[in-house]
């Protein structure tokens, strides 16, 4: 008897919830809210890319009471099915729609926000298409695969006046903010050098043979703008280690630790003036990203930034700012300084107070509502990853690069380096502008 009653209540609950949610799956502009949600409504969200980061972001957003995930998209049908299951289970319905092509999704769905977590080579096309639909975006770092694409995202976001949060979530972690804040306020004096340690990247799988594409995957769509190549088992996760799709640990982590290094030095809207880099991939194997690298950049006022795989640096992973009055080192496990009193310094009222966020995804949603800039806007994300793009070019050419960060061009008109600011796309895809 009791269980019947519980069953009845459960069913009734779902029905009520379903009705109550009706307005949230209608784009708010339809409701005459001037294109924006009313705070009392749930914010509709679409999820593009249902891999590890896609699901991590999905699981965070789904936990917010004011967000409603309405549809998912991936070129791997197994993955959309799995993500739909998470979403439908959470909402207790069967409403989440699935897509294999983002164009169809953007055409069909009326959403205010999108969470985009894709292999890097797909970032620019999909981010710009989404921003052009006036959809606010939580986009995974690195911003894109090449510098010109990354610039296109920042410009498209600005032009459409959409909110963009780059997934450089360390900015929303207190230890990083504390470190950056101390450096920014001159607690260690004048900073003339900074070292950024990123992971060693020694993954190796040899030279796999051609093989059949899994039935659940649209391989041509997975490749998108990248060259058409036979399937050799390179798919989810593996893309990180192949230059056509990503730049390995360097471009994965530049969006974290170079991002923090910039934050502490107020360099969010500029970049290096010169770049020199060496790097090597594994001696053999299909993976061709640099696994060991050492990069020297010079910024305005002679500031030197060295970026290297962690084995090369005395402090390993993280950011080490070296000032005239001491140093501060921060990574995900530790915050240290040359003198522990440095870490106890309180920034007074008149000091520089860095943007404060304690939850990166929450900060995005709050900004979607307030229309304020989030903690890591597109321009910031673009500047953080630009250093890695330029380093890749310096490695490939073996040349020292002379860069004008304001106009984003090489001051010596280096034509070979200029070519590498972007790679041509495979037809029919067009590089966004």
């Amino acid at each position: 008897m009791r269980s019947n009653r519980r069953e009845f209540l459960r069913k009734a609950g779902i029905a009520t919830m379903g009705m109550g949610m009706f307005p949230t799956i209608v784009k708010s502009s339809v409701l005459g809210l001037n294109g924006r949600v009313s705070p009392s409504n749930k914010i509709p969200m679409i999820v593009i890319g249902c891999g590890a980061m896609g699901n991590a972001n999905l699981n965070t957003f789904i936990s917010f009471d004011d967000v409603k995930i309405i549809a998912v998209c991936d070129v791997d049908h197994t993955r959309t099915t799995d993500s739909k299951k998470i979403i439908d289970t959470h909402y207790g319905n069967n409403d989440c729609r699935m897509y294999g092509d983002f164009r169809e999704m953007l055409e069909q769905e009326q959403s205010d926000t999108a969470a985009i977590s894709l292999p890097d080579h797909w970032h620019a096309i999909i981010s710009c298409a989404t921003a052009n639909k006036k959809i606010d975006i939580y986009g995974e770092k690195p911003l894109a695969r090449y510098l010109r694409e990354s610039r296109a995202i920042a410009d498209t976001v600005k032009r459409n006046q959409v909110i963009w949060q780059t997934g450089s979530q360390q900015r929303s972690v207190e230890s990083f903010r504390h470190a950056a804040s101390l450096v920014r306020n001159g607690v260690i004096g004048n900073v003339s050098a900074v070292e950024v340690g990123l992971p060693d990247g020694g993954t190796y799988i040899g030279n796999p043979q051609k093989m059949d594409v899994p039935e659940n995957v649209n391989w041509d769509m997975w490749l998108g703008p990248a060259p058409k190549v036979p399937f050799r088992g390179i798919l989810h996760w593996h893309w990180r280690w192949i230059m056509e799709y990503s730049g390995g640990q360097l471009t994965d982590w530049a969006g974290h630790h170079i991002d923090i290094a910039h934050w502490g030095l107020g360099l969010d809207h500029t970049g290096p003036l010169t770049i020199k880099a060496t790097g090597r991939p594994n001696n053999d194997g299909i993976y061709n990203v640099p696994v060991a690298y050492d990069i020297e950049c010079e910024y305005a006022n002679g500031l030197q930034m060295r970026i290297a795989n962690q084995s090369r640096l005395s402090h390993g992973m993280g950011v080490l700012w070296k000032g005239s009055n001491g140093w501060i080192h921060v990574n995900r496990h530790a915050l240290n300084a040359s003198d522990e009193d440095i870490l106890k310094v309180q920034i007074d009222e008149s000091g520089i107070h860095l943007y404060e966020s304690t939850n990166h995804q929450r900060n995005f949603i709050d900004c979607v509502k307030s229309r304020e800039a989030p903690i890591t806007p597109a321009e910031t994300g673009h500047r953080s990853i630009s250093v890695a793009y330029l380093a890749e070019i310096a490695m490939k050419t073996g040349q020292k690069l002379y860069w004008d960060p304001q106009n984003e061009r090489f001051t010596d008109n280096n034509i070979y380096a200029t070519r590498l600011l972007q790679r041509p796309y495979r037809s029919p895809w067009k590089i966004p502008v």
Partner: protein
Amino acid sequence: MQHAYCKGLTGPPGKYLYNKPRLSITQYNKIMKALIIEGQNEHHWQRSRTSIALKQIIEKSGIFTANIMVSPARDEDINDFVVGFSPYNVVLLDYTGQDWPEKTRHNFVEYVKNGGGVVVCNKAASAFPGWPEYNEIAGLGGYAGQENREGVSITIQDGAPIYNSAPGKGKEAGQYHEFAVQSLNPSHPILKGLPERWLHAEDMLPAGLRGPAKNLEVLAYAHSYKGYGGSGNNEPVMMTIRYGEGRVFHTTLGHSDNDPLFPPAIECAGFITTLRRGTEWAATGNVLQDVPSIFPSETSSLRWPFYEDIQTDIEAVIQRIQTYETGKSIDCFHILQLLVQENSGDQDSMDILHQQIIRLLTAEETTNDSKRILCRDFSWMANEPYRKVYKKLKENQVISAEAEFALNMMTP
């Protein structure tokens, strides 16, 4: 990370790009089989994967194909790790950890007794302190932390090995530094034709190794400087051991902890050459490989990233590019990229590289898989002469997309 290995590709192509014949497998009827055992070790084997380097080093001799066998991890059950050694001409040991199961130990001893070849690589020498037969096979071992280890230790004085049988401390590990390797028996097949003294790239020189040292011959030694935490003695670095009918080559060189990704000690031309020759000797009792045309000198070390002499033997790299097919080793393209990177400031060298790439793109013998990669990964550096080459390639339907990519790359 600047290396001297591929600087100075200057002058006319004929000067440096000569076609150096590699050792042909026909000299051995068929390619020989090597087994590399790894899976547990004292240092960061998981990161450095020395076994992959060993495989690439010996396979690039042209006379071996190597299988890597990974044992269960240190905290896993090793009882099912049963290995048969008889299919192999030579076994390379890059293993220090749990004792192998009885069956594997038995197989190993029988294999060596009956004429099998073994290469003991640095820390593997002390893999099994409690296994007497193994210690005879390895000859000497390092047993760090054991104060009164029994066995003989060997130092070299006035060109002769001195055997010391008083029990003593196990191995002392010095700091990483470059040191000179001195031949003791320069006429041994492994060392014949090589300079008698050469500077080894940064490595850790083990000192005070102890063991049964039966039927052991020291081939080369190095001085262990006290200033680097060493013993102050001349210590053996390469030796051979005879066990039954078997031949063992034991090298104490090749530590990788100081740069796990690209260890200088393993990229050292001297280490690579002696490992190759030692492996061949262990497998056959003879060494037919040519001595390399360049080698570290007494005062300057020499590194070969990719484990080959890419400066003087670039033709071999070009040949591999020409015959590349999807699924084969891609290292030839990495080497080409490295040559471009290292020579970018030298117009003469770059001219030679451009000529080579254009030759590859135009040659009918070059595979389409190879042309694809050349179009995709090297078109950023194309100068005007490439344009008509790419246009011509565009007519080839199989690679027209890549040729178009290359043309687009030239005019962003």
